[in-house]
């Protein structure tokens, strides 16, 4: 018998010992970060960066597979007792000796998770993690010339890159309302002093918003540079248009906040959702996940990761159509069609068997 078969048999026996729970339910009590556990992390420290931003140091569980500079991680945080999931760029270098990772969070007005992490999170708290993901990364071969175009907390994935690899020729344009709002300002200026980075800070309170046409003055050779841009949608839209106009769109890499969850396509007006097993009918817009719509209406909804990964929320779609909030893909009702309610929204009237 192979050792894998032996181990799975031993595990089966353990399951008989702990039924109806699983052995992991007991192991989690003593060792929540062990190999084989659901991926979690422990907050070890929270360092303030600016008035409304902080870096959270997390010790990930043994199952953590590492990250590539520029990637983000989804993190599940319990705020007021409710588990909420958000994505944050990783700001620590990939070769950090102690195996910790950091995310840097800017508190946004009314942001439940961001305000919690910046102002209330305590060392020792467990958080749920997902493996690092995202293609906003440097290529394997170091580009000769790089431009980083960032605004606000859009600097976070780029900081992960800057800390990770030293480039021969890197230029950065970073926008923030005032000098004291620039996250990592001291560290950036150290890089500048060491001649590892050329930096232009745009202080939008005094300078106004960055006009993309100014690029020619600020970075005359911008079109030759491989560019990574991250910031609010307005900036990225303008950049994409500008790069396209000049026929160098393939040199521009962008990262939008709230990666993945973007409503695309037409008819995003939602519709009337019927929960046929419960007999409830409610109006839903085209952007709210059906899981939230159901819970809001008091329907007992199965749920899991709430971000489209674990399939713990799959539910039969009896009639109508739903839109996948990540891809814009429309799924129509057919016998046997299951949808993930946490990442699907109504695309017109639909009937969910709950």
């Amino acid at each position, binding site marked *: 018998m192979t050792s894998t078969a032996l181990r799975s048999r031993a595990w089966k026996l353990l399951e*008989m*010992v*702990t039924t*109806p*729970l699983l052995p992991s339910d007991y192991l989690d009590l003593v060792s929540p970060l062990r190999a084989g556990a659901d991926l979690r992390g422990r907050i070890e420290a929270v360092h303030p960066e600016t008035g409304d931003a902080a870096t959270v140091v997390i010790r990930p569980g043994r199952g953590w597979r590492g990250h590539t500079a520029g990637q983000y991680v989804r993190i599940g945080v319990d705020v007021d*007792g409710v*588990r909420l999931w958000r994505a944050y760029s990783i700001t620590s270098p990939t070769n950090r000796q102690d195996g910790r990772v950091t995310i840097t969070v800017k508190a946004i007005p009314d942001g439940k998770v961001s305000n919690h992490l910046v102002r209330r999170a305590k060392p020792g708290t467990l958080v749920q993690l997902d493996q690092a993901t995202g293609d906003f990364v440097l290529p394997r071969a170091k580009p000769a010339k790089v431009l980083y175009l960032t605004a606000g907390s859009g600097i976070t994935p780029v900081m992960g890159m800057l800390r990770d690899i030293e480039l021969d020729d890197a230029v950065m344009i970073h926008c923030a309302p005032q000098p004291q709002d620039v996250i990592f300002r001291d560290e950036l200026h150290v890089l500048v002093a060491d001649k590892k980075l050329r930096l232009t800070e745009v202080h939008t309170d005094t300078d106004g918003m960055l006009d993309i046409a100014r690029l020619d003055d600020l970075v005359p050779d911008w079109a030759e540079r491989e560019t990574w841009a991250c910031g609010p949608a307005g900036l990225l839209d303008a950049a994409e248009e500008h790069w396209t106009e000049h026929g160098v769109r393939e040199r521009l890499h962008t990262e939008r906040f709230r990666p993945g969850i973007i409503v695309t396509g037409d008819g995003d007006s939602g519709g009337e959702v019927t929960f046929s097993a419960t007999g409830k009918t409610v109006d839903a817009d085209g952007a709210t996940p059906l899981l939230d719509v159901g819970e809001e209406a008091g329907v*007992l909804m199965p749920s899991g990761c*709430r971000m489209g990964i674990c399939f713990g929320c799959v539910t039969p779609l009896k009639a109508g159509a739903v839109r996948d909030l990540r891809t814009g893909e429309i799924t129509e009702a057919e016998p046997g069609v299951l949808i993930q309610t946490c990442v699907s929204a109504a695309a017109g009237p639909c009937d969910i068997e709950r």
Partner: protein
Amino acid sequence: MTAIDPTAHLTAEQIEELGRELDAIRDEVIADRGEKDAAYIRKVISAQRKLELVSRGVLLFSIFPPAWLIGTAGLSVAKIMDNMEIGHNILHGQWDWMRDPKIHSTTWEWDHVSPSDQWKHSHNELHHTYTNVIGKDNDLGYGIMRVDEDQRWHPFHLGQPLWNFINACFFEYGIAAYDLELGKNLNKRRRKNPEFRARAKAVGRKIRKQVLKDYVIHPLLSGPSFLPTLAATFTANLVRNIWTHSVIMCGHFPEGVQVFERRSIKGETRGQWYLRQMMGSANISGSSAMHFMTGNLSHQIEHHLFPDLPSNRYAEVAVKVRALFEKYELEYVTGPLPKQVFSAWHKVFRLSLPNKKPKVETPVREQELVAA
């Protein structure tokens, strides 16, 4: 249906006002629900698991009498915690708002031979909707007992003190059979129904796992303590069964609790539904340890009014609910456990014999409904 309707003095407007006041109590708790509550249930779950682990560990040496006693007591308490404060309440969806997939009504499985999903249907859906309605709520005597004068007497009921005692000892099996509606489904035609067979199979699987764990695996692990461990797990299950049966009997059976006729719930308003829950349930008074061990079902009245509010909030809600009972001049049926258990058992004995059909005064509420 008792001879005199204890709610007859209330006008329709008063009943709706009462409903609004209860809604306000509920909204207050929901608005305030948060981190402290989440920490509470996590702490209870963690304590239960640790207690069970330690008790099972001690039972490995149950050949020594003190170890047997300590291990059996610990395991009994752990099993009671699992079923009452944790399982019953999670399966009610009381903790779904936390959005933790591990503490969620759709994923939770308990130390009980009735699988969670079947129990949720018969309990959450049927019993809690049709509380104390004769013919709709089978929790009234579980189909094997007569617990109200208005139920038809049958010679079978002569033996009901005995049925009730056996049911108490093997309560989890009684519940599983009840959730399967075994009595109704065992006739020739129905037992072939694939839906019933699937459910029966699920129960069989659950029983096999539970029995294997308690009566084979753990005794085997104990080696020379095989027999004492076997006796210990049997005792713990017995203690848990008798305890939960007693607590649950106190919820709807004691004297003073009302039952309702089918036609009385036709077109029931929110206020009337609340009123039926108030008159159809009874509490147990006692210390906070007592409330904890009953899974806060000692606050049965509050639980029936708000089945999905976190159980740790029932104590504070009870103060406000009781004030409403007083305001509307209604009887809040409560008492210490021995008194309530005696009262329920007394009823089981009394109604095992036939009684004269009482003269029923049609309550005002029904007259209105009939007229409507």
